[in-house]
């Protein structure tokens, strides 16, 4: 698989959905470049493109019109983000990866308690 770069990440449909949803909910974002940079780093860590990660977690329902959450894949990405967070030693960067999945319809959160 070719190395994922920030242009690929920025142009992915799931990335645009994430940034648009964030913008709608929270208003103007300070700096999308930082978000893209961190997501790119996470994509490289996972070895997957943004769209591939979302597709891993959501599969089409029987009728094909709705998407169903794949709980095992979601769990795997939650664990992977924790590893990423540990590798970069940054909860905010881990939360950027979580935010990407959350705004694509995949609920998740980090542990809060020590």
């Amino acid at each position, binding site marked *: 698989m070719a190395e994922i770069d920030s242009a690929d990440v920025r142009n992915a449909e799931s990335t645009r959905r994430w940034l648009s949803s*964030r913008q709608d*909910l*929270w*208003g103007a974002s300070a700096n999308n470049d930082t978000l893209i940079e961190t997501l790119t780093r996470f994509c490289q860590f996972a070895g997957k493109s943004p769209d591939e990660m979302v597709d891993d977690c959501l599969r089409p329902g029987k009728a094909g019109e709705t998407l169903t*959450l794949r*709980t095992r894949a*979601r769990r795997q990405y939650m664990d992977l983000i924790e590893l990423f967070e540990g590798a970069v030693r940054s*909860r905010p960067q881990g*939360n*950027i990866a*979580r*935010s990407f999945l*959350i705004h694509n319809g*995949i*609920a*998740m*959160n*980090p*542990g*809060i*308690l020590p």
Partner: protein
Amino acid sequence: MEFKSVVGWRRSIRFFDPWREVEREKIQTILEAIYRAPRVLEIDFVRVVVVLRDELSADEMQTLKTPTTTAQLDMAPVYIFFFADLEAIEPACRGDNFRQLINMGVLNPSHGWTEEFAVGTAGQYIRTILDDEDRVPLRLPVGGDSATQIVSREALRLARTAIGIAQEYALLAAVDEGLGAQLSGVNVGAARGILGFPDTWVPSSPMLLGYHGETIEAGGQRPREPFEEDFFELRYGHPFYREPAVVDRLKAAEMIQDPAPFSWRMDEVRGLARKFGLPD
């Protein structure tokens, strides 16, 4: 707190102060309120298990979570699990609870209650509910909880009604104790493994309990459909007249409060997310 104020201040709280324990006496007060909730057909359906989050292992915590139960399960220090025991119906079929209430002057001949009526007619009525041929699974076979009894649909409905009443008493008692609370879904199969409750217990959503991590307004009272669309008099379609003076009185008593959204709510949520290290 006054009752109207308790009703007005209740919200589903999703940000709890994770580090602040709930005093045992407050938990007991909530249980005492549940203990006094109305019973459906005088049946002692309700069972409750109190779980302290910090006594669960990390694995147990993880397995309890569903995709919609995320941060709040970590944040709330206490979970109160509600159940209804279908075995509680059997004594009612013998008329036990009815006879007890007849002897106490609660159920009286003025309303048709006698020993014979309690054991015969009333007890037999409950027996027909229990033995009804319209039967359904006691629990949905989800989350690894596949073994389930097939029970009377009407008995299950009564049991779930009893749980609903108990949950409401618990929620209001929690508010009255100055606590935040929310009914939240958990993985029932995992809960069964952790709590070890019997096969005859009907599970339901636990109440997450703790001190508020967000402001007690929690963004304002939640929206509802227009009053006139849900409340009627005389017949369906004829709205119950909503007297403005009563609305004003209830506003003064804090039952009716400023509705969501508050202008500062999103800033509050974002601030809370940062405080607790949550994504936005």
